[in-house]
């Protein structure tokens, strides 16, 4: 106490009364504070905001009008679209939608495609829903039963009374989705095998896996497609020459298997040694250790990576038109060639629609992947 007093005496001035209170800060929360903090936090930030608002006011109204009020929504042919060049031509999409969906698949048989699509959608939902019951069965159905069913339904079978449809007639979204599904169904098991091979103790197995993976990842997908299209028929006896649509499907399965293998390898490497040692200590042999202990953990961990791979795979399906398959984008390009529907706005409208189609699928998968990442992170925190 005495010390404090002496300090006070030694100082020339000691405040006796407190300063008047500052007014309370005007706002601590609420939309205005959010605007101040996120849009006008500094002079540069404020100017950026104003520039963006100006840009939006300048660009957004014409873009929205182009797509909605000024657009031609229904027309018998392209003449109306040629008259209204300041709006999109959605009538073109409406007129060509059947071709964009099925290609030249016979009209009377298109219900088969719809059945396959509905089954695929249902199975995918079952498989991807984290809380769905019996997801193991969903996997078996998707990877074993569904491909066979798809093949029989789409190709046709005389014994079942379904007329055969030549693959040359297949096209549009059907081929895009089919290619994606084939890529997924075959690349995942193949990728897992390659990843296990790459982590194998056996040098020959390891070498073969590494060579395949690095070879495929080192070249563009187009060259794999060219190879499947031109070299594959040379490497098999003439009687076995693969179908024209089968060749790009083989190409995409091999291509995405290599990428899938690297994802799975990441999962395998992230498991601690203890998992392997524990499984061995229990007396499990290699197949059982992998099937019961390692892969269930490793695969779940890399679901986000695998889904991201599928997104790339789905976008890569556009490239199969280089070897003559008619995927959705190629069907769109073919539809542009119809002289009844030629006009400056039609190409832009068509690509805008195609962009939305791919975006909906890919962005959906990307959101799912992010969602799974959160779910998995939660599991780890426990």
């Amino acid at each position, binding site marked *: 106490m005495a010390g404090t007093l002496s300090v006070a005496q030694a100082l020339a001035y000691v405040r006796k009364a407190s300063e008047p209170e500052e007014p309370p800060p005007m706002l601590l929360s609420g939309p205005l504070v959010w605007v101040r903090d*996120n849009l006008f936090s500094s002079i540069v930030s404020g100017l950026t905001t104003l520039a963006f608002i100006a840009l939006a006011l300048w660009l957004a109204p014409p873009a929205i009008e182009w797509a909605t009020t000024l657009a031609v929504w229904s027309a018998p042919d392209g003449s109306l679209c040629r008259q209204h060049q300041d709006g999109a031509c959605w009538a073109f999409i409406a007129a060509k939608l059947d071709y964009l969906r099925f290609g030249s698949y016979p009209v009377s048989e298109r219900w088969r495609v719809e059945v396959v699509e509905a089954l695929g959608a249902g199975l995918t939902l079952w498989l991807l829903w984290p809380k769905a019951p019996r997801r193991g069965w969903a996997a078996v159905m998707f990877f074993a039963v569904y491909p066979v069913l798809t093949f029989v339904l789409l190709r046709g079978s005389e014994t079942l009374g379904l007329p055969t449809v030549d693959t040359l007639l297949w096209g549009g979204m059907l081929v895009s989705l089919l290619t994606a599904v084939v890529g997924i169904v075959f690349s995942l098991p193949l990728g897992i095998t390659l990843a296990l091979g790459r982590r194998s103790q056996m040098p*020959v197995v390891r070498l073969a896996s590494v060579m395949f993976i690095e070879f495929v990842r080192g070249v*563009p997908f187009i060259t794999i497609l060219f190879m499947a299209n031109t070299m594959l028929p040379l*490497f098999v006896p003439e009687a076995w020459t693969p179908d024209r649509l089968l060749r790009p499907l083989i190409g995409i399965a091999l291509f995405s298997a290599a990428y899938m293998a690297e994802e799975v390898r990441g999962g395998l490497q992230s498991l601690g040694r203890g998992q392997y040692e524990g499984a061995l200590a229990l007396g499990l042999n290699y197949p059982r250790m992998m099937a019961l202990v390692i892969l269930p953990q490793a695969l779940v961990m890399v679901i986000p990576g695998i889904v991201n791979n599928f997104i790339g795979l789905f976008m890569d399906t556009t490239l199969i038109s280089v070897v003559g398959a008619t995927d959705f984008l190629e069907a769109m390009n073919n539809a542009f060639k119809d002289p009844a529907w030629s006009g400056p706005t039609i190409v832009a409208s068509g690509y805008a629609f195609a962009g939305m189609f791919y*975006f909906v699928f890919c962005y959906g998968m*990307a959101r799912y992947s992010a969602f799974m990442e959160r779910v998995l992170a939660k599991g780890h925190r426990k």
Partner: protein
Amino acid sequence: MASAEGTRFNDPRLRALLYQAVLVVVVCGLIGGGAYNAYANMRARGIPLGFGFWNEVAGFDINFHLIEYSPLSTYGRAFWVGLLNTLLIAAICIPLATLLGFAIGVARLAPNWLLSRSALVYTNVIRNTPLLLQLLFWYNAVLKSLPGPRQSISLANAIYLNNRGLFLPSATPRAAAAWFFAAVALSVTAAAMFRGWAAWRQNRTGAQAPVALITAALILGGPAIAVLGAGAPFTFTVAKLSGFNLKGGIQVVPEMAALVFGLITFTAAFVAEIVRAGVQAVPHGQSEAAFALGLHRGLMMKLVVIPQAMRLVVPPLTSQYLNVVKNSSLAVFVGYPDLVQIFAGTVLNQTQAAVQVMSITMAVYLSISLAVAAALNAFNASYSWREH
């Protein structure tokens, strides 16, 4: 009780040998059978078996070539034209995509909500639509619907854009160019030496020099003095309308413009994501510690965050650069004559030598990939964290 026979089969080493032997036999069988079939099929269809076509006359023209080429040139020459065109695309796209990608990545991390959201929308839209669709959009929907040469869109009356492509001014060196280049070399050397001296002095005494200012002054000032003293180093030729087309200058054909533009905007979205992920992966404590040391935001980024982020950014960035090389093969869809379009397309169709042509094409891409991978491994070895 395992019998002696059973024990031997349970020996993991023996079993491993057995599995590997089976694999070797299967792979050899596949390769051998394939080779036999290929030989028989190629003989039956009259497809050439060797590489003799390399020196034969190609007979087709290529509308864009960096080295001398005519329809009388050989297939081998066409290969080199295609390879150089592929590398040209990569050389143009990689630096520009890096710049744009870093800018968008930084915008993604900016405190301004509108800026970061716009960057997010850009990366999401670009990354979730196929590159091919984007290329076709730029080529068919944008470049082809541009006005003709007479109504070109012009920038400062020097750069013209119309449906025949992009017209840039060309630069021809004059006599003064030698002085100009000498001045550039001299000022860059001087700037490098100054920076080295400043760093040395700062390490010794802690005294800082205005490094950025003096570097800029040296690099801009030296060449400026050369231009003032010796005159303009280049003659710029601007494209001029003559007849129905623009003449003079450098014409970037629409195919190349669409490919370059599409690849840059596409790759930039991926680069931006890599940059964002790299910066956000640096623990928050690092920037807090930097602030606590009294560094302001710019220095904090430069000295603390970016060096750590680079470690995470470089490996995926390299694989994006490889993707640019590989994605440039989509040139075949817009008709830009790259390696795949010329060699795996036209040459393969003309010679029918599928095996040889595809092997060469894939070997080229594979060597580029492996070379870059080796360089990356060397970088990782020297730059990686050594945690003990």
